[in-house]
C-alpha cells in the first residue's frame, strides 16, 4: 500500500514543481537569483533515510522513474535527471548508515544531496553546452539560492511526512 502512496506523492510534487514556477509571484521566483525546486529529490531523500532499511533500495528506483519523468516533462533532454537523482539517492542511502536518523542528520544529508544533485546537473548541462555559465557565477546565482529555497521546503515537509513514513517503514518490516 505505502508504495503507491509514495508514488502518488512524487507525482503530486512533480506537478507542483511546474505549477509553482508559473503561479508563485514573479518578482520572487524570477529575480536575479535563480532557484530550482528539487522537491521530488527532497521527498525521496526522506524516504531513503526513514523508509528504506540498509538493504532495500526503493527510493533509488523511485528516483530513476521520476527523474526520467522530469526529463520528459520539463526539460526534453532525457537521462540527465534520471541518472543524477538515482546516483545521489544511492549515495545518501549509503551515507545514512553512519548517521542516526534524526532531524539534524536528515537535514544535513538533504543539503548535501541537493547541493551534489544541482552541481551534477550543472556539470552535465555544461558538457552538452546547454549552459555556458562560469563556476563562480553558478555558485553565487544558482547554487546558493537553490539550496536556501529547498531547505525551506525541507523544513516544511519534514514534520508533515516524517511520522507517516516511519509508520510505513514499520508496516513493511513487520510483513
Amino acid at each position, binding site marked *: 500500500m505505502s508504495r503507491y502512496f509514495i508514488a502518488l506523492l512524487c*507525482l503530486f510534487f*512533480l*506537478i*507542483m*514543481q*511546474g*505549477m*509553482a*514556477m*508559473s*503561479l508563485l509571484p*514573479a518578482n520572487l*521566483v*524570477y529575480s536575479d537569483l*535563480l*532557484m*530550482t*525546486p528539487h522537491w521530488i529529490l527532497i521527498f525521496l531523500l526522506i524516504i531513503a533515510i526513514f523508509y528504506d532499511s540498509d538493504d532495500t533500495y526503493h527510493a533509488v528506483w523511485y528516483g530513476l522513474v521520476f527523474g526520467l*519523468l*522530469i*526529463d*520528459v*516533462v*520539463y*526539460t*526534453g*533532454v*532525457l*537521462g*540527465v*535527471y*534520471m*541518472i543524477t537523482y*538515482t*546516483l545521489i539517492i544511492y549515495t545518501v542511502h549509503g551515507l545514512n548508515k553512519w548517521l542516526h536518523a534524526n532531524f539534524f542528520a536528515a537535514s544535513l544529508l538533504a543539503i548535501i544531496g541537493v547541493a551534489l544533485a544541482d552541481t551534477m*546537473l550543472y556539470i*552535465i*548541462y555544461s558538457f*552538452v553546452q*546547454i*549552459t555556458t555559465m562560469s563556476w563562480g557565477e553558478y555558485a553565487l546565482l*544558482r547554487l546558493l539560492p537553490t539550496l536556501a529555497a529547498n531547505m525551506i521546503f525541507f523544513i516544511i515537509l519534514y514534520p508533515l511526512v516524517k511520522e507517516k513514513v516511519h509508520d510505513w517503514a514499520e508496516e513493511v518490516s513487520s510483513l
Partner: protein
Amino acid sequence: MPSLFRRKRLMVVLVGFIVLVALIGFSIRDRDSLSTPEKFLQDSIGWVQTVFHKPVSLVDNTIENVKDMFGVYEQNEVLKARLSEYKGVIQENQRLKSEIEELKNTMDKTDSLSDYSPIQATVIARSSDRWFEQMTINKGEEHGVEKDMAVMTSDGLVGKVKSVGAFHSTVQLLSGFDRSNKISAWVVREGEDEAFGLIEGYDDESGRLLLEGIKLDEELSPGDTVISSGLGGVFPSNLRIGTVEEVVNDQFGLTQTAYVEPFADMFDISHVMVVDRTAETIESEMDQEEDAS
C-alpha cells in the same frame, strides 16, 4: 564474494554512463517530433496538471481580481480619455483596410504573409529546471499546433513551439533562444524603409534579444519597433517583437547588432495564442505536390 560484488557495481556504473550518453545523444539532436512514449507521458502528465491547475488558478485569479478592484476608478478615467482618441483611429483603420482589400483584389492576390488564425491556449506549467526556459500549454496536434509555430500574448511574441504532443505542447520562450532558433525580423522606422535583421539569441545579463546582421549603412534609433518579417518560413509577418534599445557594431565590424527589449513579459504569462500562418510554407506546398503526383 566481495570481488564479484564490486565488479557488479562497476558494471552498473558503466552501463548507467552508457545509457546516459545514449539518451542525451538521442534527445538533444534536432528532432522533428517526439517519440511516442514521450508524447504519451507528456499528455498524461498534462491532464493531471490541468486538473490541479483549475482550482489553483481560480484562487489566484480571485486574489488578482480583488487587487484590481482597488484601482478600477482611476483606470476607468484614463480609459475614457483614451477612448475618444481611438474612435478616430478605428475609422481610419477601417478605411485603410477596405482600401488594401480593394487593391489586393485588383492584383489577384488573396493571401498575404500577415494572415494567420490564432489558437487560444492556457499555460499549465513552466519548466522547473531553470536551465530551460520553456512552458507547457494545453493545446496540441489535435488542435492544429505544429512544431516551430509562433506563440504570442496580447503584448507581443513570447516564443515558439518546441515540441508537440497530442493534446499538449512545449513552448520555447524567447529568453531561452539560442543560435538554432532564428527569427527573421524588420525594424520599422519613421519615413524610411524597413531594415532587415535576424533575431539570433538572448542576452541573459540585460534580458534583451540580439538582433544581428543589420547592414552598416542602416541607421536605427532607440525606440524603433521590431516586427517579424514572415520571410523565415513559419512565422507570419507583422508580429510585434520589441523595441530597439541600443545599437552596436558586431565584433568584426561588418554588420550592426541591436539590443531589442521584448514587448511581452517573459515571466508572467498565463494565456497565449499559437499563431497558425495561413500562407503556406514551401515545405507544406511541396508535400501537397508530392501527394498530388
